[in-house]
């Protein structure tokens, strides 16, 4: 009998199995190592066919999931970040932004678009994690504000798909105030009785959780996403002991009472469409 027992799975991988799969043709699931064809993986909306692990995807993919025939119009696609604090850490904030724009082809950590979900015109704001960790700065706040203005004008429902490490430090208190700005706009949406659905994906933490992500008429999450206010590392440092298994997962947050439902990606559109229908049927 051995002295130690491995309790957790996934750390028995032998060296030869650890080889990286070349990018392009094949996709290897980062959770269960299941290998599938890249095209096939995309057809399954980037969810592992074997274990159901949801890969992180961007705004473009979410728009194609939600909008009928992948037809939509981007709103305010050209807003880019200023540099209100002339912030420099290891590099200048302006250089960092320029570089990320060049690398990702994105203008900031959110895209807003209008299109039809099963025939119903809807505005979706979707965050992109690849842009400085999906951090919320002035551009994110402004695009959400303008997206809400558009929804108010056209009387459409509004959806935010969150995916963010929190506020963007390089914009200091300007980032902080985006929490207030977006929440303020959501009160206007509410007064107009237009539905707001918040969809929380992996990860949704910090200032995003502490503002629009938690303020949906419905809060819906993808399975097994990290959702919390303080990041797990900070919580661990504060309490000085290990975190319980499954802490701050979608399932944990649902059990704690802060989500209406966990919905897997392939059923998102169907569910959201149903909720939009029932929430608008008697308000016209």
């Amino acid at each position, binding site marked *: 009998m051995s002295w130690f027992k491995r309790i957790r799975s996934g750390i028995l991988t032998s060296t030869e199995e650890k080889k990286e799969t070349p990018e392009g043709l094949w996709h290897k699931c980062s959770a269960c190592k299941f290998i599938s064809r890249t095209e096939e993986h995309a057809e399954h909306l980037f969810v592992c066919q074997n274990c159901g692990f949801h890969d992180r995807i961007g705004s473009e993919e979410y728009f194609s999931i939600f909008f009928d025939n992948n037809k939509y119009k981007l709103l305010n696609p050209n807003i880019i970040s200023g540099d209100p*604090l002339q912030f420099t850490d290891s590099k200048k904030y302006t250089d960092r932004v320029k570089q990320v724009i060049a690398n990702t082809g994105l203008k900031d950590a959110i895209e807003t678009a209008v299109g039809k979900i099963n025939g119903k015109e809807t505005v979706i704001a979707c965050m992109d994690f690849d842009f400085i960790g999906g951090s919320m700065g002035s551009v994110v*706040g402004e695009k959400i504000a303008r997206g809400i203005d558009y929804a108010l004008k056209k009387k459409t429902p509004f959806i935010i798909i969150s995916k963010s490490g929190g506020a963007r430090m390089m914009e200091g*208190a300007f980032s902080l105030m985006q929490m*207030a700005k977006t929440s303020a706009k959501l009160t206007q949406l509410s007064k107009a009785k237009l539905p707001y659905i918040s969809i929380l994906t992996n990860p949704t933490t910090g200032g995003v959780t502490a503002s629009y992500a938690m303020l949906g008429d419905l809060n819906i999450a993808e399975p097994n996403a990290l959702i919390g206010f303080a990041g797990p590392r900070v919580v661990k440092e504060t309490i000085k002991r290990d975190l*319980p298994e499954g802490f701050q997962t979608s399932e944990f947050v649902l059990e704690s009472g802060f989500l209406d439902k966990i919905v897997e990606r392939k059923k998102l559109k169907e569910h959201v469409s149903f909720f939009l229908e029932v929430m608008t049927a008697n308000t016209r």
Partner: protein
Amino acid sequence: MNYLDFEEPIRLLEEELEKARQIAENTGIDGSATTSELEQKIKNTRKEIYGNLTAWQKVQVSRHPDRPYALHYFNILSDNTFIELHGDRTVKDDKAMVGGFGKLNGEPVMFIGQQKGINAKMRMYRNFGMANPEGYRKALRLMKLAEKFNVPIVCLIDTPGAYPGIEAEERGQGEAIARNIYEMFNITVPIICVIIGEGASGGALGIGVGDKVLMMQYTWYSVISPESCSSILWRSWDFKEKAAEALKLTSEDMLANKLIDGIIPEPEGGAHVNPEEAAQILKQTVTEQLAKLKKIKPEKRIEQRIKKFEAMGVFED
């Protein structure tokens, strides 16, 4: 009296003054010339040091162990009529968040704020001014109570952040703060928010949406503490001075960036040198601002409150 590292020259002079007084007392020799000279010197030194504080030093002053906290101000602002109210009606009473009714110049006001402890034992009791979700929910309950009876709200902010614990996450720290920010845009009575010490991130903003948001002179307000910013962006705790500068978190910077509505001056050398005077200055400002806000119609006030925060942000279109 406690002294910060850069207050060392003041401490030495105070020591000298104490000695001079003792000598005068013991020997019966008139030492008034020496003591008044020393007193003047202390005043000048304080003025010089406090006239040239770096951002990091201001952060230190905001955390000065002798600095007055929310309850001190509530008592003086209300001429000792303040009566504390407890509990969120759901989970418990959060000792890091306090609030209650009082009368400001005879007029009813709801006072709400984070409270830090005045000694080691009380600091634990107050959880260092870090509220849990029930603290934010208590604050919201009190705000709605005030709204119901048309009583204006004064929030005094002083927190190193909302508490990042396991139970706080279980009970929805993010939701609690989000709900407060959201509901504060719906509250029909005037709201004045004042940063009286530390204004750390969402924990501060959770009671920080107001018709007027003011900062006392030696306080800070930002999205993160300089220490945490240093540890994340510079990957070391050693760049807190640099981070404090970079974050533009002082009252002057915040006003220049139009993220607050005004600065409330403090007594020479900071609020801790003269807590009574600090409270009187605060009282005067709050009184003036409330009188102005009361004249505006509720719908108009809410509209202006939303417009003000909506205008915050710098981007290129």
